[in-house]
């Protein structure tokens, strides 16, 4: 009988306390020992982390897993494997499934589907029924089942009265409301950023100001209600500035950014490639740079994958009719690591430690690699380069906005609940 079920050898640990070279011994789902050298004979399974970074696994606050309802594009099973390949050990499924996750029965259904998944797949509950922005969904009932994040799946809650009630109703509950800040009434039929590119391309645009309007309104309502607020997928410099000012004034505000918006601009849309259509849309370079600065100065609290699988037939529609979204699980970390000039600690803060806090995963997920913490870990090769190919990804969909790009940074191993679900960049079911 060995001491450890799993031993990770030879790696460099990076966690909120700093960096150190150490081996990690795991017993079932918990880290049991972290020491300079542990004896491999003491472990049932040994995996090698030489020249690699060991960190707590990434936590995704916004992803679409397809199931229930859109299984042709993705299932909980394939989503979990794709996420594991990208270094995620916890993902949160967006509530715009069919049916919407706006009822405890659907939460239970999702939890059942997730029970056998490679990593932890948690449900995000809807704020309003059907994410329609009219009637509040039974958020407290869903919270009782363990749901900690709520959103209306990328839809702006247009009725200010409804938004206020949502804040007031959940105030004091252990939940986070994640809001899409882009005011839809200003955007109209817009399908990409309103600016030079949309104008040349002859497509209706969505002004960056719409996001400022949404953030401004929701900050005021949160202040009025005394509630905390989290803004999802901020994409503009103006909105980021309002959030930064609110934080400086002491408000309980947090925000996240999608990996794509730290890297890509709206110029990418000029060929009418439907894989470049995202929501919120890609923005020009000055916004991308502002978001990059927000990562460094701490205004941004988390990076999300915004994984969104779409079947090939749907992406072959005309540019204005094709659904938005790109695959992202398997590329999110590498995309940001390649695009931004930041230290690995900063990146891990935004991909792992802080999103775990926002998602209220608890003290076992505080990011520290120490005895008693959950064995949800990722081992990263920071220098390895590879080429993106949508066809080789595990998803049934292939819509990657980064198709053909060369990225630096690769997941070597992913350990979920003590199980090595990805070893040497291959998934083990």
């Amino acid at each position, binding site marked *: 009988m060995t001491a450890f079920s799993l031993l990770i050898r030879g790696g460099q640990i990076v966690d909120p306390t700093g960096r150190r070279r150490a081996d990690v011994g795991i017993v079932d789902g918990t880290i049991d020992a972290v020491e300079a050298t542990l004896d491999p004979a003491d472990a049932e399974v040994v995996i090698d982390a030489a020249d690699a970074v060991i960190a707590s696994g990434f936590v995704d606050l916004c992803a679409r897993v397809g199931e229930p309802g859109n299984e042709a594009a993705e299932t909980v099973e394939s989503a979990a494997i794709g996420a594991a390949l990208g270094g995620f050990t916890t993902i949160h499924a967006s509530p715009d499934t069919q049916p919407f996750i706006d009822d405890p029965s659907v939460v239970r259904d999702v939890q059942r589907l997730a029970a056998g998944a490679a990593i932890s797949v948690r449900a995000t509950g809807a704020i309003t029924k059907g994410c329609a922005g009219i009637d509040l969904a039974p958020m407290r009932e869903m919270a009782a089942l363990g749901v900690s994040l709520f959103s209306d799946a990328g839809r702006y809650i247009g009725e200010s009265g409804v938004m206020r009630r949502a804040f007031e109703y959940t105030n004091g509950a252990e939940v986070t409301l994640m809001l899409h800040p882009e005011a839809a009434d200003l955007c109209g039929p817009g399908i990409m950023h*309103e*600016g*030079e590119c*949309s*104008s*040349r*391309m*002859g*497509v209706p*645009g969505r*002004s960056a100001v719409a996001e400022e309007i949404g953030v401004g309104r929701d900050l005021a309502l949160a202040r009025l209600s005394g509630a905390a607020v989290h803004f999802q997928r901020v994409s503009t410099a103006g909105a980021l500035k309002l959030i930064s000012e609110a934080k400086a004034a002491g408000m309980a505000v947090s925000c996240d950014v999608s990996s794509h918006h730290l890297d890509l601009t709206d110029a990418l849309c000029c*060929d*009418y490639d439907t894989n470049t259509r995202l929501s919120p849309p890609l923005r020009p370079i000055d916004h991308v740079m502002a978001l990059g600065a927000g990562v460094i100065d701490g205004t941004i609290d988390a990076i999300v994958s915004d994984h969104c699988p779409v079947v090939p*037939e749907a992406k*072959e*529609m*005309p*540019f*204005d*009719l094709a659904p938005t979204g790109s695959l992202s699980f398997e590329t999110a970390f590498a995309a940001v690591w390649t695009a931004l000039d930041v230290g690995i600690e900063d990146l891990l803060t935004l991909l792992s430690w802080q999103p775990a806090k926002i998602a209220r995963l608890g003290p076992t997920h505080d990011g520290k690699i120490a005895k008693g913490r959950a064995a949800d870990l990722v081992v990263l090769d920071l220098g390895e380069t590879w080429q993106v190919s949508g066809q080789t990804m595990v998803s049934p969909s292939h819509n990657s906005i980064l198709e053909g790009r060369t990225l630096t940074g690769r997941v070597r191993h992913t350990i979920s609940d003590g199980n090595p679900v990805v070893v040497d960049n291959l998934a083990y079911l």
Partner: protein
Amino acid sequence: MSSPVELRPVDERVIDAADIDESDTPRLISGRHLLGLDELGPAGIQQLLSYTDRFVEVNQRAIPKVPALRGKTVCTLFFEDSTRTKLSFETAAKRLSADTMSFSVSSSSVSKGESVRDTVETIQAMGVDAFVVRHKSSGVPWQITKWVDAGTSVINGGDGWHSHPTQGLLDAYTLCQARDGSAGDDPSLVGVRIGLIGDVKHSRVARSDVQAFTALGANVVLIGPQTLMPPSIAGWTIGQGTVEFGHDLDSLLPSLDVVALLRIQTERLGESLIPSAREYTSCYGITAKRLGRVRSDAIITHPGPMNRGVEVAVDVLDHHPGVVITKQVANGVAVRMAALFLLLGSGTNIL
């Protein structure tokens, strides 16, 4: 006494393949497709306009037909209604002796753009050398280039708000013709001040006109209420010409060498971009009163069909000598013949 350009009847027994000198067949500078004027570039635009002169001449013959595209098939694939442009392309193809196929896909049978790819691949299987595509979604012709065979050309007959290259070309040609008699080898609109009046924001004609006019060196002023103007005009020009916004039509009119009118689509009235058609007409329409401010030597164009009573008062244009609308239509056929010839044709010696 043989002339270099003979009037040859189109008859299989008379014309031998050997008669056609393929070695002197020019090809469109920009490549296999005609999708947008920015891709065509100033050199390609000049090439097309110069060739249009030849086809204007062909169209004036007693038998306006040449065998250049014999055996080729041109398919007009229109996902959006259009009688004029479709007819114009079909006429152009037929005058070059091509076979034509015509598919009008109404919005009910291809709902939400589901089957663009299927439609293209099905028709392609019947043997097509060129598609002329019109669609209400910008970018569709570019997407279609990914689905056609290696040898097939795609011509943009108008995509959404974005591009209508042959319209831009025929408008530019008409202006050169009105000013200089023809395009010649070096068509130019340098120093010409052109006012483009109306709904620029939603107009593929406007975008292509700006490209074509500026490629020839003109100075374009976009005139209309800001709700009908695009959010940005950066990158709209090609070549040496300039483009700017202008809002006061009355003060601008006397300075315009060309008054290029655009249609106001009735759908826009429903979108509340302008308070009413009457208000639009009183501020931006060519009313009888406003016609007095248009110079007598100015040229007046309109892409058609005209909304009489909206962008122009009912009979106003019948009284100005500079109205060239019917020439635009005739030149449209010639420009499209030039485009098809440069993409698919054989032998300038048989023109």
